[in-house]
Every structure is written in structure tokens, then in C-alpha cells.
């Protein structure tokens, strides 16, 4: 029997859902829940307007085909599956590709200042892994603009009162409450393992508090900080995902970490230079003569090696990121042909990303956001000088395992409570923190899309789940929440108090540097089993040192050291999931590349890596498991649903290889795109 009242519990409390994380995915989920009449509490480390989604630059994919190239959602599906080296379950990808044009229209209606064509329509540009103009964009700060549009819509709901079924306004209750500057500490699970709330900490007062939620949705982004310096924001530690994993949630495909080919080095982070630079015609090159000391402008065309165009004539500078990063690594690291520096007298780990052949006015209209970043941080004018770039850790294809329910048409069943459900009943995950859409390698401009599509799906899924609940979390015994709260308070006191009596303890930032150094060196572009063994040893060493950590801040206000230690303890757990997954997988697929296993091995490894926490930060891999969703048992295996696009070898040397099947099925339409 479902709870009697959708809005209020038996005890008269308003039933709310908790969304942790206020980036694109969390905000879209929130909006959909509000539209379904369900009030939401958003818990976010930072004011949601400062979430990491702001860093997305290039754009968002949608096959609207306004450029008359014969593009279609069918091709978008195929290119995404192909680009991901066939590791993604295809029904969610189909759902996403089909929904994309509508999503971009929705954003357009929300007022996103997308760039326009002369006719006043949305402009589209090219991105990696495709030959079609499919990417809508707002300058080169598309993520910022999309996040702001959703932030504005959610702010509207912050001013909307909760109204019950009789039309009565509930005093003091608004549709969205924001807890900004709060850190997620743990899930509250009841005796049946159902998620009924969370414990969080106010990062100003350090007050620890439990919150009840009919369901909880993690939209907490990726784990870039595990690798130290990356293109991610400082808040992207993966801590919430790691904690959910430690509390029993299955983590999938953790070893698939995207390294973006073009970033600029920095002491604190590696700043992304969007793929849109190449989408607008940017070319990557190094001098043919590795000892060439001339400034780039003085090196004639014929003496430049445009190596991506040479190696992959079909897609050129717009090969997918895993391929471009490996090529740059090959040139710089193995062949020693990176740009020669007169300062150091060495060939540096850098290649040129050149836009200087494109008129400045065009660049200012389409790419100003990223070119400003280059100008400000590298101190060089990129309109007239080729930029110097190198690959950097960028995105996690893996994440919390989430379910979906397949429709007869091969897409998702609308409103199924299984969509985006994790293996813990009542816990959902959406955005980069899930693993659902990108397989072994994500295509550029698909991340904003997957966050938004994920949110559009997750909101209704949670609404269905909540609608079917027999009892409200509001009526769950308060001792459960008090115990969880007390436990987290004690853990916080442990972190602040441990090793105070010792002369010296481990500095958490030093330990973090030790961990991230090996992760970055041995667990990114190229992976070797012997080195991965050493990475795992190192993770063990770091883990052993955790109890020796001592912080120098005993302050009871805005204690950022304590917060960092907690996140770091969780990062160590995720590091093991990533490294052990990499060690385990004996093939090369997408972003996971092992020179000793050069080929993809579908017979043995066309399988989802399913990792389960087996105590003390240890990881075990499963072939299958069972979980319960909305009262029904579901059996899950590691098989991948590839029923829509037949797996085949990726061949970006050849133009159109990524959309071959769709072109065979609908030849006339799609051929135009290749002419």
C-alpha cells in the first residue's frame, strides 16, 4: 500500500527528497521533482551557481540537423556508442540522443544565450568523434550558461510555497530549500537497507545534522582530485560517491578515466582548452625537426607535423579524446618530439594547438571564454601565437552503478523507478557520478547532455519510487537518525583530535600528493600491470598512514583541514576502485589502454566492471548481483546491452566509420553529411 498522502507523512511532516550536489544534473533532477509536486532539499558544498558544471566550455550535442547534413539522433546514438568503444548499455544512450534536440530547445526557452546563425536559429559546431555540426554553444562558456539557466529556474522554486492537494499553502514551506556550504557525510539506511536520509555538516559552524528524505539523489560529480591536478574543480573529490560505495552501493567501470588532450599546465590545476578550439578549425602540431628552436610562427607549414591529421585522416584533429591523448603522449613521451624549449634546452611535454589561421573576430565570437583563460594563465596572446598544451585528467566515465528499464523501442521506460536507481533502495545517482552513458570514452559535448538527460529521467524515476513507498522516512524512528548523527559527530571529532598528543603526524596534503602522483603517472593514458601493482602497493601504504594523519587546525569554525581529511580518506577508497579495476581488465578499450594487451577483447571483456566494497577500503568484483527497487527484486549481470549498434572495431582513420551502420540503414539522408 502506498503512503496515504504524497505530500505529508502520517505525522504531518512535509515529505521531501534530498538532492546532494547542485550542478546541472542535480538541478535538473530538482526541477523535475518540483514539477511532479515533490519538494526538494538541495545539499551542496558550494553555492550551486559555483558548481563544477561552470567549467564545461565547448557545448552540448543535439542532432537537430539544421545544418542540412543529414544528422539524426540515430547517428548520434551510434557515434556515442562507437566513441565509447561499445561499453555503454545502449538503451540509455538512445534515450539521450533522442531527447537531445528537445533538451536544447528547453534551454533555449530558459534564455540561454546560445550563439546564433544569421537567420536567428541556434548555431552548431563540430566536436570530436563526429563529422556533423551537432554542438550548440554559448561562446566557450556553455556549461556556465547552462548552469546559470537551471540555477535561475531553481531559484524560482525557492520562492514558491508548497501547496497541498486542496490548494492550501503550507506555512513556511517552500518547494526548494538550499543547504549551501554543507558537506555530505553519509547515507542514513534503515533496518531494511533503504536509504531514508543523509548526515551532513555545515562547513561554517561545523554543526553535524541528519536530514530525512523520502529518497536521496547523489549528483556530486567526478573524482578528479584523486589525480591531484586535473581539469576538475577543487570540490570534485568523489567523496560522496566513495562514501556511498563504502555503504554498499555498487561502483561501475571505475577504471575508465578520460584524459583530455588539450590543457595548459599550472601549479594548482591543469586548465582545459576546449575541444571546440579544434571544432572551430584548430590544428595540433609539433615541428618535424624535434630540435627546431624557432618560434612557431617562423616554422613553415611544410616543416610542421600535423600528426593527428596524418595518423587519422578521416577525423583529423577531431578524433575522440582517448585517441588524441594517446597520440600526443606517443609524440611527446615516447618519441621525444614535444615542443623544444629554449629555456630548458629540452623537448617539453607540450604540443601546439594552433588557431592563428582563423580570423580574430570569429575567434572572439565563438571561443573568447577559453582564449581569455589562456591569455590570463599562460600570459600569451592565443589569437596570434599557437597555444602550448598537454593532456590532463578530465572526466570519469565510471561511477556509481545505476539501473534502467528498457522499453520495447530500445529506449528507457518513462518514469520507471529503476531508471538511475543505485543498488541501494532509495538512493539515486545522476551526472558524472553515475556510469551510464559514456562507456569506455566520452565524446565531447555529451557530458552536459548526459547531466541534463539524466536529470530529466531521474526526477520522474524518484517521483515514481516515492509514490510507491508504503511509509514515509518522516515516520521512521528518530533514533535511527540520532545514531547516524552521533556517529558522524564522533568521526569528525576523531579527525580533529587524532594524534594531537604526538609531536608530529602525517600532513594530509602531503599524503594526498603522494597518492595523486602515482595515480597520475601510472594510472592514466598508459597502463602496465607491474606499475599498477606498485600503484596498489602505494595506495595500501597511504591507507596505512591515514590513522597517523594529524591536522594543524583545531578551530571549531570553517575547519577546512578536517573537511579535507574526510574527503581524502574517501579518495583513497576510490583510488583503489580505479587502480584495481585497471589492473583487473586485461584488454584495451577506450580510455583504458594497456600496451601489453593492445586489442579490445569483446569475448572476455565486453563487460561492465562491477565493484563492491568488501571492508576496510577493499574491493571485490562481481559478475552479478541482486537489488530491490520499489519492492521488486532485480537481477543484474555484467553483460552490456549492445542490441542497437553492433560492436565493431573503431577506425577513425576512415571518414564516416563511426556512423557506418546508420548510413547503411538510411543511406540517402546520411550520405549528405559526408559530401
Amino acid at each position, binding site marked *: 500500500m502506498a503512503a496515504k498522502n504524497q505530500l505529508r507523512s502520517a505525522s504531518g511532516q512535509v515529505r521531501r527528497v534530498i538532492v546532494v550536489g547542485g550542478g546541472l544534473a542535480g538541478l535538473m533532477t530538482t*526541477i*523535475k521533482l518540483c*514539477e511532479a509536486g515533490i519538494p526538494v532539499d538541495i545539499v551542496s558544498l*558550494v*553555492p550551486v*551557481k*559555483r*558548481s*563544477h558544471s*561552470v*567549467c564545461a566550455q565547448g557545448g552540448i550535442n543535439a542532432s537537430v540537423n539544421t545544418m542540412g547534413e543529414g544528422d539524426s539522433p540515430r547517428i548520434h546514438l551510434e557515434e556515442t556508442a562507437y566513441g565509447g568503444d561499445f561499453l555503454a548499455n545502449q538503451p540509455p544512450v538512445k534515450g539521450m540522443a533522442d531527447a537531445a534536440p*528537445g533538451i536544447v*530547445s*528547453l534551454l*533555449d*526557452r*530558459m*534564455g540561454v*544565450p*546560445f*550563439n*546564433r*546563425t544569421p537567420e*536567428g536559429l*541556434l548555431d552548431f559546431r563540430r566536436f570530436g568523434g563526429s563529422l556533423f555540426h551537432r554542438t550548440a554553444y*554559448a*561562446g566557450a*562558456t556553455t556549461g*556556465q550558461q547552462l548552469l546559470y*539557466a537551471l540555477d*535561475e*529556474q531553481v*531559484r*524560482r522554486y525557492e*520562492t514558491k510555497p508548497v501547496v497541498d492537494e486542496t490548494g492550501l499553502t503550507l506555512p513556511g514551506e517552500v518547494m526548494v530549500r538550499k543547504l*549551501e556550504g554543507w558537506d555530505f557525510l553519509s547515507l542514513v539506511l534503515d533496518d531494511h537497507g533503504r536509504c531514508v536520509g543523509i548526515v551532513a555538516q555545515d562547513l*561554517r559552524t561545523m554543526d553535524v545534522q541528519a536530514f530525512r528524505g523520502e529518497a536521496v539523489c547523489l549528483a556530486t560529480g567526478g573524482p578528479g582530485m584523486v589525480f591531484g591536478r586535473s581539469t576538475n*574543480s*577543487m*570540490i570534485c573529490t568523489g567523496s560522496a560517491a566513495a562514501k556511498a560505495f563504502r555503504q554498499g552501493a555498487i561502483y561501475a567501470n571505475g577504471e575508465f578515466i578520460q584524459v583530455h588532450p588539450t590543457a595548459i*599546465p*599550472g*601549479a*594548482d590545476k591543469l*586548465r582545459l582548452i576546449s575541444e571546440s578550439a579544434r571544432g572551430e578549425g584548430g590544428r595540433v602540431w609539433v615541428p618535424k625537426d624535434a630540435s627546431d628552436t624557432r618560434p612557431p610562427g617562423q616554422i613553415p607549414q611544410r616543416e610542421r607535423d600535423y600528426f593527428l591529421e596524418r595518423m587519422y585522416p578521416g577525423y583529423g584533429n577531431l578524433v575522440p579524446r582517448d585517441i588524441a591523448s594517446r597520440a600526443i603522449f606517443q609524440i611527446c613521451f615516447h618519441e621525444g618530439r614535444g615542443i623544444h624549449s629554449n629555456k630548458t634546452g629540452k623537448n617539453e611535454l607540450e604540443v601546439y594547438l594552433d588557431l592563428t589561421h582563423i580570423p580574430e573576430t570569429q575567434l572572439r565570437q565563438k571561443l573568447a*571564454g577559453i582564449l581569455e583563460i589562456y591569455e*590570463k*594563465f599562460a*600570459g600569451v596572446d592565443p589569437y596570434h601565437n599557437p597555444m602550448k598544451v598537454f593532456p590532463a585528467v578530465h572526466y570519469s566515465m565510471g561511477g556509481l552503478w545505476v539501473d534502467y528499464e528498457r522499453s520495447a523501442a530500445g529506449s528507457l521506460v518513462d518514469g520507471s523507478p529503476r531508471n538511475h536507481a543505485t543498488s541501494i533502495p532509495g538512493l539515486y545517482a545522476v551526472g558524472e557520478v553515475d556510469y551510464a552513458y559514456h562507456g569506455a570514452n566520452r565524446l565531447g559535448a555529451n557530458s552536459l547532455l548526459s547531466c541534463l538527460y539524466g536529470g530529466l529521467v531521474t526526477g520522474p524515476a524518484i517521483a515514481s519510487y516515492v509514490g510507491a513507498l508504503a511509509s514515509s522516512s518522516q515516520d521512521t524512528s528518530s533514533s535511527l537518525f540520532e545514531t547516524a548523527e552521533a556517529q558522524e559527530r564522533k568521526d569528525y571529532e576523531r579527525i580533529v583530535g587524532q594524534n594531537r598528543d604526538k609531536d608530529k603526524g602525517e*600532513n594530509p*596534503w602531503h599524503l594526498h*600528493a603522494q597518492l595523486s602522483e602515482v595515480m597520475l603517472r601510472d594510472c592514466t593514458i598508459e597502463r602496465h600491470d607491474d606499475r599498477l601493482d606498485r600503484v596498489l602497493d602505494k595506495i595500501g601504504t597511504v591507507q596505512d598512514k591515514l590513522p597517523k594523519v594529524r591536522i*594543524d*587546525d583545531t*578551530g571549531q*569554525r*570553517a575547519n*577546512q*583541514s578536517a573537511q*579535507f581529511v574526510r574527503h581524502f580518506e574517501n579518495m583513497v577508497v576510490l583510488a583503489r576502485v580505479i587502480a584495481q579495476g585497471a589492473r583487473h581488465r586485461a584488454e584495451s578499450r577506450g580510455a583504458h589502454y594497456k600496451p601489453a594487451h593492445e586489442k579490445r577483447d569483446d569475448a572476455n571483456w565486453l563487460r561492465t566492471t562491477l565493484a563492491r566494497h568488501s571492508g576496510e577500503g577493499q574491493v571485490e568484483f562481481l559478475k552479478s548481483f541482486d537489488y530491490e527497487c520499489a519492492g521488486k527484486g532485480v537481477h543484474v549481470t555484467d553483460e552490456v546491452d549492445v542490441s542497437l549498434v553492433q560492436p565493431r572495431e573503431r577506425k577513425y582513420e576512415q571518414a564516416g566509420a563511426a556512423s557506418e551502420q546508420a548510413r547503411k540503414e538510411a543511406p540517402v539522408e546520411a550520405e549528405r553529411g559526408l559530401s
Partner: protein
Amino acid sequence: MSKNKVHLKIRRQDGPDKPDTRRWEEFEVPLLPQMNVISALQQIQLEPKTKDGKGVAPVAWDCSCLEEICGACTMIINGAVRQACSALVEEIAPHGETIVIEPMSKFPLVRDLVVDRAKMFEDLKRVKAWIEIDGTHDLGAGPRESAEQQQVRYALSRCMTCGCCLEACPNVNDSSHFMGPAAINQVRYFNLHPTGQHQRTERLESMMQRGGVAECGKAQNCVEVCPKSIPLIDSIGHVARDTTQHMILRWLLG
């Protein structure tokens, strides 16, 4: 002063209710390649000791994206309000000069360099800084827009709510209610949009309330400090004109 060190002088305070802990502390950290103020502060975390060797708690500060797009790490560096991530050590202290860092003064202090800018987000509610869409269901494309108009709107849309313009504005202070340039710019931004225009009147009326556009003293500091070069003076001018027109019309039409 040694050239391979970065010298920092930082204003600290343990909390808003602890004015007695307000103090300066000086630090000396190693100079790294491509270093910015954020990485200098990170060095303090690794070795939290003052210049005199006294062990202290690491400095608290806000940051997130580190590429000047989230607005979190805004602080006062050598007397100028800006983001710490884009403050490159090489540029602001080329000869090893001391870098002086303080928290913004126009917002309630949390601790050290951390302040609470919640007021700015509250003001976005007051001016209805959103488009009133009917829902997320499929209603087709949005209104067409010229490329020219898009470029105007895009320039206005880049506000990160960082607070630089409020910090620099003499009319934003303890004894005034002035919302500041950021919220006024949002009024112009949404009133320019074909659908946003439907709530134009409500937005202009919010500008006639206490704290509205009339309280701008035209010091023009805002436009100088805006890290995204938003034409704030133009925005204030447009909104002031529209508000006055609206006031007169309302009076004439009763």
C-alpha cells in the same frame, strides 16, 4: 628578500564573533612555476608555519574552479578585489614583493579569507532573475534572436556573482541597502529577452524599492573591477532610464 620565495601577508580572524583574533600573519613559501595566489595558499597547507616559524592553522579560503569562472576565490589582493586563481605571482610580485591578502569587507566574515555572499543570491530573487517558462515539457524551440542581440546578452550573462562590483562600490556599505551593480545588470539581461520581457514591469518595480537603482552614486568603480568586463555602467544606465520611464508612465496612467 629571497627571490625563490613568495612572501605573503594575510589578514586573519577566527570567526565573526571573535574580533579579538583579528591579526596579520606573514608566510614565506617556495616559488613554483606558473604560480598563482591559490597555489601559494596551498603551500601554507603543506607547511602551516608563519615566517617566524610559529605553527598555525592553515589559512581558510574559498575556491573551486581555479579558472576564474565560478567566482568563489574572490578576495582583496594588494588592495584590489579580484579572484585569487587568476592573480599570478609573477605579475603581482615580479621581484618577490610581499603580497597582501585580505577578505572582502562588504560581506559577513566567516573565517580568515572566507566571507558569506548569500545576500547576492537573495537579491537575485528580489529582481526575479529568471525566465518564467511554463514547464520542462516539450514546447518547441525558444524565440529566434539575432546574432547581434545574442552577443549583447552573452556579455551580460557572464556574471559569476563574485561580488567584486559590490566590494568596489562606495554606495554598498553598512548604512545602505543598495543591491549593487550585479543584480541591476540581471534586470537588464532578463528584460532584453523576448520571453523575459513579460516580467519586465515586476523587475523594474523591484528597482524602485529600497536598495534599487536610484541608490547608484555613479562612482563607476564597478566596471573597473569586473573580471568579466561586463558593461555594468551601461546596464545601470539602461535600467535607470527604463525605471524612470516606468515610474512616469505609472504616474500618468494612474
